[in-house]
């Protein structure tokens, strides 16, 4: 009897396990279920086009969603844990543009077949396509992009600044009561974006190859000088060292800021949350480091990868081809304001009228000039953590003595690409 109870308990425990494991696989009849792991895009755009593609597939596949957290770092943690476990239940992956190298190198995503690659690359911005490649091969398929613009207050700033120094000068003239600059300075991926774009705009890069550091000294110091100057300026947001995209948006909507560097979501947000400020809000290009050269805005967005452990890779690539079709990109742009990766779509009248009222061309230009982060590195995560640790808090960077900051950044990056030590 005692033994009976123990056995019964053991059975309860293991039956639970069987139910949980066995629920997965469908039979061969009917459409194949493709599971798309992506963060829950609030506009519902991805869901809509997935449904459309499932219908159009004529019973070939049916796309289902598995949601990832909202924050990019956490999305990645969820995905890599599953892929590290060689989990076959993942088919389509919504990948941040910077994960391509890591995922491709680890063998977690399948390279895009040549015929698909040709179809999905047509008319796509070359800056965006670069984020989808690893060692010269296309491993992911861009579905939507994203980029940052300089948002400013028309009533405070008659003409938008072209360089960072110019912007800081203008802001300091307005004063901290209304002239603050909102940017992303917390210790997270957003800070890497800022620093990387400055380094690119100053004329160098973080990496020269997947495992080779570039970071030319003069240019890197020029970039760090701007980071230090802005961080120590009275017009820096008081929460600069903890700020992210959303706190920058809130800061700008609160009315004490003349500038913010942010993604286009801030425009509709201001319309509904801060109508008076929205009236005065205008968009310009991401500032440059040196006058006369274009700024190098960041490239964000999502690329679709097909899991190397998926049992339905052919269907998954077919679904990918469908999802990135022009009309579907337009749908996602209309519903959620996510910038298409196809350059030709910006000529559609709806883009400049509804999706990005009056600034569709700014977005196109920003993506065209955009510079990707060093996503070809197979240890991008280590690299990103190392950059974050080197420059955060940005207030520690002394614009008059840049040697320590430069050394620290270079050392950290060198260690990171060798994947040495704790991070």
């Amino acid at each position: 009897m005692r033994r009976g109870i123990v056995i019964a308990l053991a059975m309860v425990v293991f039956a639970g396990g069987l139910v949980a494991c066995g629920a997965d696989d469908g039979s061969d009849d009917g459409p194949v279920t493709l599971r798309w792991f992506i963060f829950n895009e609030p506009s519902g755009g991805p869901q809509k086009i997935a449904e459309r593609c499932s219908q159009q597939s004529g019973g070939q596949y049916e796309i289902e969603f598995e949601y990832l957290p909202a924050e990019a770092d956490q999305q990645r943690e969820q995905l890599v844990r599953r892929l590290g476990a060689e989990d076959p239940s993942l088919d389509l992956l919504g990948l941040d543009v910077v994960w391509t190298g890591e995922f491709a190198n680890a063998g977690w995503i399948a390279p895009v077949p040549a015929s698909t690659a040709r179809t999905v690359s047509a008319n796509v911005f070359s800056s965006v396509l670069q984020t989808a490649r690893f060692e010269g091969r296309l491993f992911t398929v861009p579905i939507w992009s994203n980029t940052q613009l300089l948002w400013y207050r028309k009533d405070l700033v008659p003409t938008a600044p072209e360089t960072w120094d110019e912007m800081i000068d203008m802001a300091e003239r307005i004063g901290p009561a209304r002239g603050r600059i909102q940017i992303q300075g917390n210790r997270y991926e957003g800070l890497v974006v800022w620093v990387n774009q400055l380094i690119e705009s100053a004329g160098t890069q973080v990496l020269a190859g997947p495992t080779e550091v570039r970071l030319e000294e003069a240019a890197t110091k020029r970039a760090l000088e701007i980071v230090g100057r802005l961080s120590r300026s009275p017009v820096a947001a008081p929460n600069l060292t903890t700020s992210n995209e959303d706190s920058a948006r809130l800061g700008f909507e609160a009315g004490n800021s003349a500038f913010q560097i942010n993604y286009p979501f801030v425009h509709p947000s201001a319309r509904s949350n801060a109508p008076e400020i929205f009236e005065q809000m205008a968009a310009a290009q991401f500032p440059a480091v040196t006058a006369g050269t274009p700024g190098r805005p960041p490239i964000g967005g999502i690329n679709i990868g097909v899991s190397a452990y998926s049992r339905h890779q052919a269907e998954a690539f077919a679904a990918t081809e469908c999802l990135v079709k022009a009309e579907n990109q337009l749908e996602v742009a209309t519903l959620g304001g996510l910038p298409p990766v196809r350059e030709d779509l910006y000529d559609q009248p709806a883009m400049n009228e509804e999706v990005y009222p009056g600034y569709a061309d700014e977005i196109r230009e920003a993506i065209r000039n955009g510079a990707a982060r060093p996503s070809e590195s197979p240890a991008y995560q280590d690299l990103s953590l190392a950059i974050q640790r080197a420059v955060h808090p940005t207030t520690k960077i002394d614009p008059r003595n840049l040697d320590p900051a430069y050394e620290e950044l270079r050392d950290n990056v060198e260690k990171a690409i060798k994947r040495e030590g704790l991070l």
Partner: protein
Amino acid sequence: MRNRSPRAYLASTAALLIVLFYALIPVLWLLSLSFKTPATVSDRKFIPQDVTFENYTSLFAGGLDSALLRPLINSISIALIATVIAVTLAAFTAYAIARLDFPGKTVILAGALAIAMFPPISVVGPLFDMWRTLGLYDTYVGLIIPYLTFALPLAIYTLVAFFREIPWELEQAAQVDGATPWQAFRKIILPLAAPGVFTAAILVFIFAWNDFVFAITLTSSDSARTVPAALAFFTGDSQFTAPTGNIAAAAILVTIPIIVFVLIFQRRIVAGLTAGAVKG
């Protein structure tokens, strides 16, 4: 004994107010945030200007695919299953320790104490690696097993303390009447032990309900993700907008059952929390 002067009453009232304020302020703040609209969420005011239920309803929009429903079901089921199993196993052990004579008692109790102090982060790496090979990764079982481990010491200590208070003469009487130790355990002791078992169950439930480390490392989809881990999955109006209102609403929803529990069973919880510790 006690000083019943007006000053003492005043002091008692003040103490009461301070304690209430201390305990409730963050809960009230969450409650306030959970009723605010996106436009007023950063107004810093304690009383919401426009009250909305949107933060709550949107958590459940879409039924089982919604942000909160599945995690809530998972949380409740996992915590309940872990509680039932932990308390059952602990009751066996506690009975043996409180009642039977056998060598190794101290070893078990000391071992349980050691496990209660064990740092969970030290085992998440190996557990993750073991679970992915065993297929327990992202399943109920994969969470229930570690919860059992870390809840058992708590349950055993609580139950040992309670079982020692049971009038064992009754059991002896039953044994004189010819009952086996097992029958005595089942027929006499279990009914008497029920309150203690119940207390242990509450404590274990709160423990499992509370966990975060295992929940974020050993799950990766809605099939086993619990509420504390699911809070990270909420999205605001856009990818970059913080879902403050939704998080606050979900936080309130998982806090209410605990507050109700506490209100109903506070004596038991206090007794249980202190049972094992003070008698040493």
